[in-house]
């Protein structure tokens, strides 16, 4: 019942977003202009406007859009004459690969570091981790990206500056992390994207650890004679992981969105870079398609995480049952 309610909410959200996005995007500028041949004359300009249906009233354009969207057709890109949805799906694996790599870095580094900082909050290790996390939290992503390129690519020459490495098809989806060259291209952008979430996770884990260490069950475990590593590794870790992983899951959507900046700086051929390009050339079908696809993904992720959390956390289950 709960699940059905959430799905219903999600559908409403999707619809509202589509109206907002469409109305807004189709109200600005005239996309014909950027893409028109320099040699074209007024007659051709007028013809093109008519052909692309840009002179019809907004609500009519939206109606056409909605009816075709429901049958899976989100319009054709003005610039490339390929279906907008195809363009986005083509670039999605690159963005998802980047986002997942960033999340992996953030989780694999963030949780242990946060744990350490939480267990030894006043040692120099703990304090320096916290200081580092504040820096990581505060540094704007784009600035970090620029600095990373300057240091690691230009000065030291260890890693490539831009682009995605060679890809290999796994189950029909091109991935680049399976080759050494591909990994080399992935490291900097993923690290750049991960920094913010990494700091977030460190702080969360630290806070959670500090709170957990004050709990009764820890004292009882120690009294029982359980060795310290087990106290931490088995008892504390298990209990703080649920909320942390939940947050991480919810943040995945945010990571995919922030990939826009990273993709622009590192010329990573993902959806985010496509969005910026489409905004610049007013390729409206692509902008609208991107927003709808991303909104759909977020809503799905949120839904999934909500359901998972409800299933996992007995306290929540009991509350909703009452």
């Amino acid at each position, binding site marked *: 019942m709960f699940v059905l309610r959430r799905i219903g*909410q999600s559908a409403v*959200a999707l619809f*509202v977003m589509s109206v907002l*996005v469409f109305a*807004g*995007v189709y*109200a*600005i500028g005239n996309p014909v202009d950027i893409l028109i041949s320099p040699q074209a004359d007024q007659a051709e300009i007028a013809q093109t406007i008519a052909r692309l249906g840009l002179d019809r009233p907004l609500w009519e354009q939206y109606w056409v859009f909605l009816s075709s969207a429901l049958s899976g057709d989100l319009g054709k890109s003005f610039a490339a004459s390929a279906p907008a949805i195809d363009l986005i799906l083509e670039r999605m694996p690159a963005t998802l690969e980047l986002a997942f790599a960033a999340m992996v870095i953030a989780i694999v580094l963030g949780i242990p570091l946060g744990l350490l900082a939480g267990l030894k909050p006043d040692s120099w290790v703990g304090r320096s981790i916290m200081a580092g996390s*504040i*820096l990581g*939290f*505060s*540094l*704007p*992503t*784009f*600035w970090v990206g*620029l600095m990373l390129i*300057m240091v690691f690519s*230009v000065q030291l020459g260890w890693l490539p500056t831009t682009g995605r490495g060679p890809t290999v098809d796994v189950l029909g989806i091109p991935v680049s992390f399976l080759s050494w060259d591909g990994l080399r291209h992935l490291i900097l952008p993923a690290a750049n994207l991960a920094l913010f979430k990494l700091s977030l996770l460190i702080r969360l884990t630290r806070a959670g650890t*500090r*709170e957990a260490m*004050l709990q009764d069950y820890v004292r009882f475990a120690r009294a029982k004679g359980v060795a310290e590593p087990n106290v931490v590794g088995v008892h504390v870790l298990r209990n703080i992981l649920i909320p942390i992983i939940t947050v991480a899951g919810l943040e995945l*959507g*945010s990571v*995919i*969105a*922030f990939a*826009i*900046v990273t993709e*622009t700086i590192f010329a990573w051929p993902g959806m985010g870079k496509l*969005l*910026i390009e489409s*905004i610049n050339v007013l390729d409206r079908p692509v*902008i609208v398609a991107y*927003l709808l696809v*991303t*909104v759909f993904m*977020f*809503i799905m992720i*949120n839904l999934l995480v909500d359901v998972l959390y409800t299933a996992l956390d007995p306290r929540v289950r009991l509350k909703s049952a009452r």
Partner: protein
Amino acid sequence: MSVVNSPTRELIDVFARDRIALIAFWTLCALLLVAVAAPLLTPQNPYDLAQLDILDSKLAPGAKSAAGYTYWLGSDDQGRDMVSAILYGLRISLSVGIASTLAALGIGLLIGLIAARAGGWLDALIMRIVDLQLSFPSILVALVLLALAGQGVDKIIIALIVVQWAYYARTVRGTALVELRKEYVDAAVCAGYGSTRILLRHVLPNVLPPLIVVATVQVAHAIALEATLSFLGLGMPITSPSLGLLIANGYVHLLSGKYWISFFPGIALLLTIVVINLVGDQLRDALNPQLK
């Protein structure tokens, strides 16, 4: 416990506990002061085209300008003095960040209180909208809004407000709900006070502290977001650059060794965001009873 201290005294006490937080606090005050006093401190108004000279562009730190003053941190590609540009840019970043946060806070406060007080379907509706808003990453919302609305200070502030208000609404509603169940509210009702009065005079003061913590961090977030949008080309107009735009302008010169055009604004931005976060952290620690 002695007599209740004045708020300012309490504020300074909070920071006195931790050396680093104290330094951060005073640095923040200094930054604010410098930003406000920028026109008095700088040799040049970098937003006045008549004061710029293209022949003075891209000079290294320490070079002298045609008008006689020194470009202590160099000049950018239009001939703007970096020190002046950074101070004026700081001004914009801080004012945009603070203005949007205050406005969002006000709106969020209002809506959150209404939701908590009203309850029922109104509360549910408002919270659904808030959840909807919060499920979209801020950068996406801001990007689309600016792409639609175009450039300008006012449009950026509006975009930042739209991005932030939901945070406050949710926090306020949560805290207000807790407060409304407390006994002193029952006492006030018994005493015959109207609900608006209860909200404003009794609930509000208790709701404010967590809100202030959120707001402090949000200012930093707003500043970073504005910088990112300017970097992507969707922010401030080019003749009145904020820190983000200065960094973007300097980006293309990094490889040719003219680091100062991007580096110093970057440091200024960094410093601002870090001290605001440090101050926010300290405030939060001070107000969190569990960790005492």
